[in-house]
C-alpha cells in the first residue's frame, strides 16, 4: 500500500478549489494552506505555454522531513503518508527547512502542519477533499502499489513528471503532461 496522486496539468485550470476544500475540510486557518496552485509560463507571445499545478506535500518515500525531526513528530504511517503528530511537535522548523517543496508551515498553535492526504477519512473514503471537489477531476488519488487502481492505470498510459527529482526524495505525486 503506497498512496499517491497523479495530477493532470492538461485539465487543471488553477481555480484553487483544492485549496479551499482543504481549508474547510481540515480547519486550516485563514492565511495558511496545505495545498496551493503554481502557474508556469514559457515562451514569447504568441508562442506561449501555460501550466497550472496543484501542489502539496509529496509524501516522499525518502523524506528529509522525517529524517531530521528531533522528536519523531514527523513520521510515516500506513500507505506511506507522511504526517505530523501535533502533540509531539516542538515547532523547531527543521522539517520546513529540509522540505524541497516548501510544503510545510507553522500553524498558529505552534506545531508544524501539512497535507495528510485526508488521512482522517481513510477508513471510509478512498479519496481526499481536494480530489473529491476538483471541478475538472484532474486529481487522481489512490494506491500506487495496486496496478489496477485508477492512479496506477493513468500513470501507465500517460506521460508524467515529478517535481524536484534532483532532490532524490522519491516523491509520490506525479504531474501528467
Amino acid at each position: 500500500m503506497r498512496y499517491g496522486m497523479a495530477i493532470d496539468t492538461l485539465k487543471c485550470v488553477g481555480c484553487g478549489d483544492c485549496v479551499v476544500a482543504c481549508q474547510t475540510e481540515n480547519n486550516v486557518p485563514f492565511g495558511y494552506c496545505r495545498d496551493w496552485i503554481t502557474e508556469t509560463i514559457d515562451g514569447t507571445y504568441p508562442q506561449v505555454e501555460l501550466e497550472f499545478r496543484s501542489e502539496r506535500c509529496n509524501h516522499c518515500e525518502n523524506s528529509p522531513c522525517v529524517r531530521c525531526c528531533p522528536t519523531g513528530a514527523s513520521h510515516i504511517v500506513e500507505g506511506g503518508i507522511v504526517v505530523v503528530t501535533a502533540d509531539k511537535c516542538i515547532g523547531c522548523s527543521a522539517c520546513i527547512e529540509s522540505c524541497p517543496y516548501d510544503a510545510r508551515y507553522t500553524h498558529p498553535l505552534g506545531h508544524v502542519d501539512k497535507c495528510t492526504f485526508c488521512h482522517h477519512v481513510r477508513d471510509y473514503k478512498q479519496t481526499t477533499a481536494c480530489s473529491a471537489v476538483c471541478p475538472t477531476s484532474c486529481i487522481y488519488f489512490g494506491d500506487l502499489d495496486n496496478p489496477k487502481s485508477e492512479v496506477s492505470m493513468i500513470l501507465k498510459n500517460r506521460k508524467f513528471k515529478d517535481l524536484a527529482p534532483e532532490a532524490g526524495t522519491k516523491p509520490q505525486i506525479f504531474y501528467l503532461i
Partner: protein
Amino acid sequence: MISTRRQFIKISGLGFGGAAIAASSVKLAHGAGLFGSDDDEQFNDLKNKRFPTYCEVCFWKCAGWTHTNDKGEIQKILGNDKDPHCYGRLCPRGTGGLGMYQDEDRLKTPLIREEKNGKQVFREASWEEALDLIAEKFNKIKAEDGAESIALLKHGTPGKHFEHLFEAFGSETVGEPAYAQCRGPREAGFAATFGSWIGSPEPTDIRDTKCLVLIGSHIGENMHNSQVQEMAQAIDNGACIITVDPRLSTAASKSKFWLPIKPATDIALLLSWMNVLIYEDLLDLNHIKDNTYGFEQLKEHVRNFTPEWAYNITNIKPDQIRKTAYEMANAAPAVIIHPGRHVAWYGDDTQRERAMAILNGLLGSWGKRGGFYLKEGFKLPSYPHPAYPHPKWTWRDLAKDYPLAGMGLTQEVIRASIPEEAGEHKVKAWLVVGTNVKKSIPHQDLVNRAIEALDFLVVVDTMPMDIVGFADVVLPECTYLERYDGIRSATNREPSIALRMPAVPPKYESKPGWWIAKQIGERMGVGEYFDYEDFSEVLDWQLQQIGSSLEEMQDIGVKNLKRKSGSLYFAEGEKVNLPTNSGKIELYSTELAAKGFDPMPKYTPHAEPEEGFYRLIYGRAPMHTFSRTANNPHLTDLKDKNTLWMNPKVAKLWGFETDEEVYLKNQDGVITSFPIAIRVTERIRWDAVYMIHGFGHTNKKLSRAYGKGACDTEMITNVKVDPIMGGTGMRENFVTFIKDNGKGTKA
C-alpha cells in the same frame, strides 16, 4: 464623484457591535469528515448535520449540502452528487461560500441615513422603524408619482421576492445588469437565428463535442461549474478546442488552436470562417436546404470575406483560419461555437452573436449531440395570490428605443432617474438588491447623477458594498446559508429542482429576503399578496402540487425529473421546426430586416487606442464572482487583489516591472481611485492590458477588499450601446499609466 447632497457614508462610527464571529475554530482533531456522500454508510449520521442548499455566490446556482459540526456551526459546503449544475463538485466560490456567512464585515442591523452636526451618518435602526420608513416613502411616491416611478435593480435569487413585491404594488420598472451589461446580446442574436434564447445554463453539449470554439469566452476562468467539468471531459475525450482571444486565457492554454486575435475584430474572423465553409463546399447541403433560411443571400454576403481579407483585420494568418474552419467542418454537427456569457463589448454585439449563431446554423449543431442539446425546464405552479395590478408603464417603455430588448435595461432605468436625461417616464426611488451598481454598471457618471437625484434609495445586501454607502435605508439580508428561497428550477438536459434551506439561524439582526419583501408589502397595504407566515409554507404548497413535499426535498436536496418534450436531440435527417418567422434557422434574419437592422452581420472597424494608450480588457478569476466575493475570507486567501497584465514589450517601453504600482487614466481623463500592481506577462498582446473585474472597493468597511487593486468599471466611461437590444458595450475604453493621481498621491 461623490454626491454632495447624498454624501457617501463610509458607515463609520456605527459601533458595529454584536457577536464577534468565531473564526473557523482551529481544531486538531477533525470533525465529521466526509466528501462525496450519498452512497456512504455514514450517511445516516449526516442527516441531522447537513442541509440542502443551492449556491448564491454566482448565478450558476449549484446545489449542495451545508454541513454543520457538533456545535451547530457551519463547517463546510459540499456539492450534491445528483445535481446537473455541479455533479457533486462545487467550485472554489461555492466551497468557500461559508466565507459569506463568516465574514465579520457583514451588514448587521438596519441603518438609516440621518444628518448629525451637518454631516450625514448612518444610525442603527430597528427593523420596525426601517420598514415603516420604507413603506411610508414608497407609498408617498406611489401616491404622488405613481408606483411605476419606484424601480427595482436586482441580481440573484432574492430579486424574485422583491419582483413579487413590486408587481404587487404596481411597478414593473426593473433593471438587471445580467441582461444589458452581460448576456443580452447573445440572447437577441441567437433568438434571431434559432427563435429562442440561450438561457442559463447554456445548453451546450460540451461533454460530447468534437470541437469547441471559444470566442472571448473563458471557461476555467469563469467557473460556470458544469461547463468547466464538461470541458475537462472534452479534453479527456480528445476534442479539438479552438480559442479566439487576444490573451492566453486558461482555455487558450488548453486549446489545439489559440488564435491571438487583434481585439475588436471578431466579426471579421467569423465572416471569413463562413466564407471558407461555404466556398470550399464543407457543408451538409441537405441540412442547408431543409433547415435553413437565406443561404443564397448569406453566400453572396460573405463572397469577399476571404481569410486573406480577414488576416489584414484580425492578424490571424489565413492558413490558421482555414485549418480551424476544417476542424469545425470535420466535427460537424458535433461542434459548438460557444455563445459566451458577458458579451456586451463593442455595441455591435448582437450582430457578433448572430455571426456565431449563423456558424452553428451552417454546421447544423443546433439540437445535435455534441452541439446544442434541446434543453427542457420545469415550472412550479405559483403560490396563489391576487392578480397583479397593471402598471401604466414598465421597463418596456423605458427600453422602447431598442426593439429586441428582452429584459429591463439597467442603464435606461438609471437615465430615467436623472431629471434632465429622463424622457416621458421618470424614476424617483430605487430598491437595489444583490447588485453593487457602483461596480456592475458602466458610465458611473450617470449612476452618480441618478443617485444624487433620487428621492429615496433602499439597498438590501449582506455586505457593505460601495452602493450601500449611498442608501437612505440599508437592510441587512442574511446569507443564502441562513434562509429559504424559491425553488431552483433550471433548464438542463433533464429538468431538475433544488431546495435551499437554512442550515443555521440568521446571524446578527439579518433577515431573509422573502421576509423583508413581505414586511414591506404588508406595510404598503398589499399584504394579501403575502399570505403566509413563513416562506417554507409557499415551498411546501408548490412542491405538494407536483407530488413532492418540503420534507422530501429537505431530505434529497435535488430532484431530477423526466423529460416531457421528447428527445434531447433532433433525429438524423429530421426537418426542424423552430420558433422563427420562417420556422427555419435564419441565416438571413427576417426579424432584424423587418426592424430595420442588417439582416446579416457586417464587420465595422472600431476605435483603436491612441499612442500611449492601451485597450482595457477585463475578465474573471475562478475564485471570485464580480465584486461580491472580494471580502470573502476564504477567497481573498486565494486572491486578494487584481493586477494589470502587461506585455513585456510595453513594460520595457515604460520601464515598468512586475509589482510596480500605477494609476490608470482613461481616454476621458478619469483616473482609478486606487493604484494597481503591474504583472508583466507574455500572456497578453501589446496593444491591450487586462485586469480582473470586481476589485478596487471604496468602502472602508470591507476590511479585506478596501483599496485592493483597481476597479475596471471606473475606466469604462465610453459606452457603445447596441441599437438592437440596448447592450452596453464596454471594450472601447483605453488606458494609460500614471504614477501620480493628481491628488498628491503617488503610486
